[in-house]
Structures are given as C-alpha cells and as structure tokens.
C-alpha cells in the first residue's frame, strides 16, 4: 500500500509531504502517525508541507486531527513551511488551524519543539530521558 514515510530523529517524528495526497493517503498518514507516536515514544511531530500546492478543508482537518491526537498522546506538533498562497486560501476557505503550531522553516520548528521538551523536563524534575 502507498504510504507517506515517517522518519524518527531522536524524540521527534518527521513527515515530509511531497506529493498531492488523495484522501485515503491522508487518512493512512493520520493513523500511521498516531501509532508511531506511541510506538516510538515521540514527544514531537514535524510535518513539512512546503511542497503542498493546496490545502483544502479535508487536508486541513487531517492536520488539525494529527495535532489533536498527538497532544492527547503527550506530543507536540509543528506544521512547517506553508506556502503564502496556501495560507491566504485556507483562511478565506474558513480554516484558521487555530489549535496547530506553525513555523516558517525547519530551524524554527525544531527550536520550538526543543523549547517545549525543555519545559517538560523541567516539570518532570529533569528525570525525563
């Protein structure tokens, strides 16, 4: 079956969406990611959408769902690299992705995740590995 690859980098899962996704592929990614967060004990998910030429309400909902499920599983999601034309269109469509953290590039996204990991370790008294 066709799948979008999920890479693991330390405590972060990295997904780069490089193709236009049909709806079933998007659903599969959502399921795969949720499973991998638990399996790999990930604390962060980075979704690179810089190749995506459009995000419609279905894909937008998928992104919001991933972020929501990840949060419930104690992982932080950052969506990286949305194209300006996509952002303009998405807001006009009526989706603001209000519960989703976004970053313009990977460096910023990684820094955001590292900062949230540091907070978490502080909260756990530094015992978190």
């Amino acid at each position, binding site marked *: 079956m066709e799948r979008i690859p999920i890479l693991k980098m330390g405590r972060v899962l990295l997904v780069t969406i490089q193709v*236009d*996704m*049909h*709806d*079933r592929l998007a659903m599969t990614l959502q399921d795969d990611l949720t499973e991998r967060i638990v399996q790999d004990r990930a604390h962060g998910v980075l979704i690179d959408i810089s190749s995506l*030429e*459009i*995000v*419609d*309400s*279905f894909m*937008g*909902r998928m992104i919001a769902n991933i972020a929501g499920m990840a949060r419930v599983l104690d992982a932080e999601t950052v969506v990286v690299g949305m*194209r*300006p*034309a*996509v952002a*303009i*269109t*998405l807001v*006009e*469509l*009526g*989706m603001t992705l209000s519960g989703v953290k976004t970053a313009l590039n990977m460096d910023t996204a990684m820094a955001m995740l590292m900062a949230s990991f540091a907070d978490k370790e502080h909260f756990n008294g530094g015992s978190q590995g």
Partner: protein
Amino acid sequence: MVVLKDESAPIRSSIDVMRVRQIVREWAVSLGFSLVDQTKVVTAASELARNTMVYGGGGELRMEALNSDTRRGLRLTFSDQGPGIADMEQAMKDGFSTGAGLGLGLGGAKRLANEFAIDSRPGQGTTVTILRWNKL
C-alpha cells in the same frame, strides 16, 4: 463572452478528485492566473469535486475557459445525479455537514470564487457552478 475551450472529467474516486486539482491547475496557469488565484480556484475545485464524489455518489466536472474583452475566466461546473440537497440554506452555512466533513465545502468554495451558482432538486442531483476571473 466566448468559450475558448471546454473539457469534461469524471469524478468517481479520490484519485479523480486529485486529477481534478491537477487539471484545474493546468487550465488556471494557461489562462494566466496569478499564483494566489490559481491556488484559490484549485482549492474551490477540490472542495466541490469531493462533494460530488462523497455526497453526489460521483459525477463529472465540466471546465470552460472564457474570454471577454477585458479578462479571461475559468468556469467549473460540477454535476451529479445524487440525492440532491434537501435544505439549501442549511447546506450553505459554514459548519453544517450531513457527512463527516467540516461543512466548509460549499460556503468556502463560494468565497473562493467570483461567481457561484447552485441548483439542486431532491432525488435529481446537484449542479454547482463557479467562475473565477483572472485579474488583468
């Protein structure tokens, strides 16, 4: 107003919805649409094609490239022979959905187009037409 060319495409699966996005993009590019306008019309087409597939049980898209004295436009007509829409006012509202969607499809597509028309009769299907002009 002159129709420069027209073409039809089937909408039966989510692969077809993806193809609709590709072909509408090609047409928008060939009509000289800006990147933002391309993105808007492709996104609107994606929403409507998915509606045709999910709620209409499949159907087709008819694309027309239009030419007037001062501008060019892309008219997209999505038609199905599905159950039709019982309550149009409700269907156009953001957040209303009889399916699993977000209920942004129709209202969102309307906002992304310059002109929007919908015709639906219970038991006879639904036709949605959008038109997007390019800014010259």
